[in-house]
């Protein structure tokens, strides 16, 4: 029964991941590709030696921030480090796993991410004891989107390639903490009756924003601002669709295949 519950969540996630891949092709992926045309150019930063700053910031994620987990996963990968780091010469696609095309890599990543978010949603549902049904699935999805996307996006809006940003590790820590606090806060606000729970829920949701998201020191960028605005809205709209599909499909599978009818 436990395995069946987990499998149901994984299947719902995979379906949503396929949906997400199709939805991304509409707006999000074209905008990413468009922004990458500007990414390689040196930004107009008068106080920096030309050519050095962009290389240092663009690739700090793979040079400096090798976390133990990342190193471990990289070790398990069949791709040698030399191949994986080819992209440091400027080609982002150089390290796609198993030599897959860029689209296959995105599809695989969407499947994994979809299954991951689906399991997280199911896990929360099981732990707090509120089942995801066909009827409330869209609400579950909407709350997932609030916690994972909209609330963190207040501090760290979805970025295009080539956008200025603070140090990666700081942003990831802030992002993960915000998702966690927002999820707990939303639970307290939406599902607890006590007034004190609702107030502390709001406080938890507000806390990471009062603390402040890590911001870049230099906000100059070659990527046009219009692209950034379009991308932020497109990314949030696409992820909202993803979460609604995930919630409804999870509810459907739960009712149809897991729970007694």
């Amino acid at each position: 029964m436990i395995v069946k519950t987990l499998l149901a969540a994984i299947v719902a996630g995979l379906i949503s991941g396929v949906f997400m891949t199709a939805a991304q092709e509409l707006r999000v992926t074209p905008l990413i590709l468009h922004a990458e045309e500007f990414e390689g150019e040196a930004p107009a930063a008068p106080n920096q030696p030309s050519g050095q700053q962009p290389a240092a910031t663009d690739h700090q994620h793979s040079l400096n921030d090798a976390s133990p987990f990342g190193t471990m996963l990289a070790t398990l990968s069949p791709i040698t480090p030399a191949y994986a780091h080819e992209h440091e010469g400027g080609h982002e696609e150089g390290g796609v796993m198993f030599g897959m095309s860029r689209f296959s890599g995105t599809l695989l990543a969407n499947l994994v991410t979809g299954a991951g978010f689906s399991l997280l949603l199911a896990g929360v549902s099981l732990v707090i004891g509120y089942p995801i049904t066909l009827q409330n699935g869209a609400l579950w999805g909407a709350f997932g989107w609030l916690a994972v996307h909209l609330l963190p996006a207040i501090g760290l809006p979805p970025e295009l390639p080539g956008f200025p940003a603070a140090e990666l590790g700081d942003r990831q820590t802030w992002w993960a903490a915000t998702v966690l606090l927002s999820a707990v806060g939303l639970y307290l606000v939406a599902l607890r009756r006590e007034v004190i729970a609702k107030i502390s829920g709001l406080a938890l949701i507000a806390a990471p924003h009062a603390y402040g998201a890590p911001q870049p020191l230099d906000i100059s960028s070659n990527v046009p601002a219009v692209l950034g605005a379009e991308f932020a809205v497109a990314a949030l709209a696409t992820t909202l669709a993803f979460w609604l599909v995930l919630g409804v499909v999870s509810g459907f599978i739960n009712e149809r295949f897991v729970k007694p009818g």
Partner: protein
Amino acid sequence: MATSTVSSIPLSLSDRLTAGFVALMIGAFLVFGAGLANSAVLHDTAHDTRHAYGFPCH
């Protein structure tokens, strides 16, 4: 028939919590691997996904 009999029994509290925490752990692992891990291979494979989901990237 046997399976439908079993599945009509709701999860017990301990089973529910076990399933919940297992789901949370596997889910967090998958999301971490696709969205946050600092491996160049994972980053490049999931690049467009990371941007589309608004994961901190670059």
